[in-house]
């Protein structure tokens, strides 16, 4: 049962900034048009967001600045109160929680990483990481012990007594990550954690992040404005614009079937082979018997197996997780994915 229950559940969540926001929302009867609200001096942050995040799943919320993605995250962590709608954390209604319950929830179940790191400047690396534990009331000795483990986990060993200002951006964010994980939360919020970093460091931190997630398997809500980052990390992506979730789907589906024009603009330049899995181009096994000796997994990214498949003149059988043959993939399909969309001939035709 608990496996089935979503860890985070949003039910038509609205966040509207402004004086008479609540009243206007009631009058609007659920149909919020941003322009109308703007005229009345209100700003629509989140407009009717409903979705669920399952245990161990990573949902990436993607949008440009001002799209309401951070506001959505802040609503779910209740750093701001949603104007309307319900948010459930493991089945409990977040919006109706008392301050005390909320603090308890944050102390035990939630961790959050911030874009500008938000480290406490007066505390050392170790003290920063131990901070949530000390706030909880753990003894200094235990907290420091646990913080040391976290330092090792994020690979900052040897810098425990540095102050944040003495660290590079990447290192500071490692501290931020360690701090958010110190209380062993179930839910992990990341608000543009790598946006303030240089591209090379960003890549390195993403790898690090995937490694950590591989070990820890948290339920994650990840906010970013970088579509490539979203594709790289996400189980599912929610694309937001003007407070509305335009599309919420797996990376592959978003790239293949963009729901709106806005989404399509993002996906246009994305190399398909980096997103699509073999599963999406395979065909059912037909009459032909002349298979290649090569076998590929249906979950493999096309990019990773393209060279082998193209090097083989015959069709390549595709295996599922139980090593059964579930289909075949032809090199023509792979060629289409690799070059098809970008060819001018195709678009003329």
């Amino acid at each position: 049962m608990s496996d089935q229950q979503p860890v985070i559940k949003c039910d038509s969540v609205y966040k509207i900034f402004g004086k008479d926001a609540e009243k206007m929302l009631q009058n609007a009867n659920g149909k919020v048009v941003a322009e109308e609200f703007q005229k009345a001096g209100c700003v629509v942050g989140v407009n009717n967001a409903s979705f669920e995040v399952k245990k161990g799943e990573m949902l990436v919320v993607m949008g440009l600045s001002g799209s309401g993605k951070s506001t959505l995250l802040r609503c779910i962590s209740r750093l701001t109160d949603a104007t309307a709608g319900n948010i459930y954390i493991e089945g409990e209604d977040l919006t109706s929680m008392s301050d005390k319950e909320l603090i308890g929830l944050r102390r035990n179940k939630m961790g959050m990483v911030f874009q500008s790191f938000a480290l406490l400047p007066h505390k050392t690396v170790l003290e920063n990481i131990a901070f949530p534990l000390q706030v909880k009331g753990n003894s200094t000795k235990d907290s420091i012990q646990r913080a040391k483990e976290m330092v090792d986990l994020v690979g900052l060993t040897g810098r425990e007594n540095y102050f944040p200002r003495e660290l590079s951006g990447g290192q500071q964010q490692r501290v931020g990550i360690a701090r958010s994980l110190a209380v062993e939360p179930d839910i992990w919020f990341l608000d543009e954690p790598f946006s303030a970093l240089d591209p090379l460091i960003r890549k390195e931190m993403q790898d690090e992040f995937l490694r950590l997630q591989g070990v820890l398997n948290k339920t994650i809500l990840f906010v970013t404005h970088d579509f490539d980052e979203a594709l790289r990390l996400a189980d599912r992506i929610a694309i937001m614009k003007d407070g509305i979730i335009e599309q919420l789907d797996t990376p592959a589906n978003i790239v293949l079937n963009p729901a709106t024009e806005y989404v399509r603009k993002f996906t246009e330049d994305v190399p398909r082979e980096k997103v699509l899995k073999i599963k999406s181009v395979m065909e059912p096994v037909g009459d032909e018997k002349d298979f290649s000796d090569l076998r590929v997994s249906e979950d493999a990214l096309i990019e990773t197996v393209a060279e082998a498949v193209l090097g083989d003149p015959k069709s390549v059988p595709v295996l599922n997780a139980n090593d059964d043959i579930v289909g075949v993939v032809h090199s023509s399909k792979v060629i289409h994915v690799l070059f098809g969309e970008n060819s001018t001939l195709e678009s003329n035709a």
Partner: protein
Amino acid sequence: MNFINYLSERPKLTQFGIVLIVFFILMSMTGLYHDLIVERHLFAKSIVKGEIQSSVGFAESMSMILNWQLPPQLVRIPELTFYHPVINTSATYVLIALLVTAGLLYKSFAESVNKSQWLRVNWFQIISKGFVGIIVGLLFIPTLYNWFFGEVTRSTFWEIPMMLQDFSQYLIFEFWLTPVYDPEIEDYEDYGRVRLFTRAIGATLLFLINLVRELLIGGFETVVSLANVFSDQSGWDWLNENKDKWYSSVPAIPWTVLTAGAFILGYKLQGVGLSILAGFSCIYLAVFGQWEPAMQTLSFVLVAAPVSVLFGVIWGVLAYKSRTVERVITPFLLVAQTFPHFAYLVPIIVFFGIGDHAGAIATIIFATPPMIRLTLLGLKRVSPEVLDAGRMSGCHNYQLMFKVLIPTARRDILIGVNQVIMQCLAMAVIASFIGAMGLGFNLLLALNQLRVGQALELGVCIVLIAVVLDKLSLAWANKQTDYFADLSFVERNKTALLFVAVFFAALLFAWFGNWVFADTAKGINYFYLIPHNKGITTEPFWQAGVDYMVSNWRADIKIFNEWLLVEVLMPMKASYLAMPAIATFVLTMGVGYIIGGIRSAIIVGSFMLFIALTPWWERALITMYMLTFAVIVSVFIGTIVGAICVQNKRATKFILLVCDTFQTFPSFIYLIPVIMLFGVTDTSVLIAVIVYAVIPPTRYTVEGLRNVPESLLDAADMSGTTKLQRMFKIEFPLAFPHIMLGVNQCVVFALFMVIIGAFIGTEDLGQEIMQQLFSGGNIGSGLMLGLCVAFIGLAVDHLIQTWATKRRKLLGID
């Protein structure tokens, strides 16, 4: 035609020109009263004697103006029937009311699309604006008319000081009485609860000060005297009862213990550098024979500073939490910036009496506002993400404030603590006016005896205490714990143990001193305490220097002094006094309008109006004259020195150090040498003011020029500018807003010193405040005078800040 074009492209310049022309026209219209107003008292005296009228009727006023002569009420705003509203419903005023209403509605009507519907749609607006029109036309304008042209009845504004005085007397002696037993007359007597309350606060502070003081210099004796505070009330004579007990003769801690303690503390908190600074400062205090007054001052600061910091942080946090609190305390903070210290002292004497506690209270009142401001500023600057991080870590409100917000705002709060310590020591001298003991008191004594060398040594003592306390508090706040060391008890507490060891060693040492010095110096034990006048002194050296200057330069200085007085200062003062009030208003409000629009004009105008309505308008003009002269010279010197020094890294460092030192030096010290050289004249005051006020423009010029972005300088170099071109075309324009903030500070500093200059002898507002202080004090006059001074400062502050903010926005700085 070209000229017209030139002007129309520069509207501000044109406006300024018009203001100046009107100003000078008004200046030339004093005619009849010119000879009266150039002497400070004469105009007011003539009115009292009935030689001239303080105001004349409307028709006569008009005919006077047509004859190129301002009516008297425009030359010097008379005592006004301040709240004496007049309602007049004659046809003229009804017409005015209608005109005002029409004027208010005109814009709405002109802009409306559907003229026929207009009346029906805007009925509420029409009624409300009509109401405003009636109020203005039938009440405001008749009242104003009556102000200026009606019969003068008795003033009310001039009576405000007396009313305040009476009110405070009532508060203290008659309000909410309660019987208290008085042992002297052996009966109950009625006391005001307010006074009991203020006295209780005073007694608490006094107790704390004495407690610290007794540890430092008094030994058990003073604990005994403390006990007497209580025995006074109860008739219990603790001292006499316990006279023979051993503990009533325990001596104070020898100075060697504290000095060693300073070394150890400095080392523990930061390292060798601080250790040496703290230790040698103590040695300086002891060797120069200033140990006792220094410890008195220290005890006073050790109580006043923490209380100020505590109050400052509390109010800062409250203001951060609540917009209402912030809005209420902001005006107080503003006024406190420029309110002269002496004006605080009068009410404090009345409510708290005289003594160390009164000095401490004055210090706390003076030192708390900057602490509040900096706390609030620091808290507001904490990034919202850090706040979120704190909340997501599961902090409740208390943890959020004390573990996240305040520590993160630490930088600004520590600047606040530094300010508090500096203010406390700056007040050391001023507090001695109302009975605080210590270095300040001795300094004042030395000043009165014109002993430059001694005053200088005392000044250095004050600076040293300030610097050491500041560095120690900073080091303490920055201290961090080491979680890795697994140390034994001895290792963890080695400094404490070391101190205990040193403590006993020094005690033994002092004990041996009894024999060492038994016959040498009349039984003075130098290892225990070096008494006043028995230490070494450099006074003869300084005295010789001053004597040399006086004997050799006096003649030249005299010539310079006379030239300055006769050719510059006297004419300047006369021309300030010769300003009719209306001209002053045109000038200040006009400049206000040019800088910040109608809002600034009204703000500056109301500050000036307050001053003009008090009996001290002429005195304020003299203050303004001294202020103007001092600020012009200071800014001139400061920017030039700053601009030259910034060319060289070492010179920059040096000049900043000089600025720091001069700023910490008790301002009174500047007074003596100038008196000796220039005598009791305005020159002396102004030179002292300039020496003190030149600091901020210098510092801000250096900072402003240094902060010009490197890339811009490179760009200028690549455009092929010479060094001078770069200076005047790039660096100065960009640094100018910052330099203007220095000018602003300069005005505040200068105002502060001009008031202190009353010691030398001036005839401005400061002199009046000083008289209030020494004549026992009228609370009302003290406060009103203080406000006059504060408002001069605030008017200038407002103008400069508004200008600098606009300019910075224009340049895109911050």
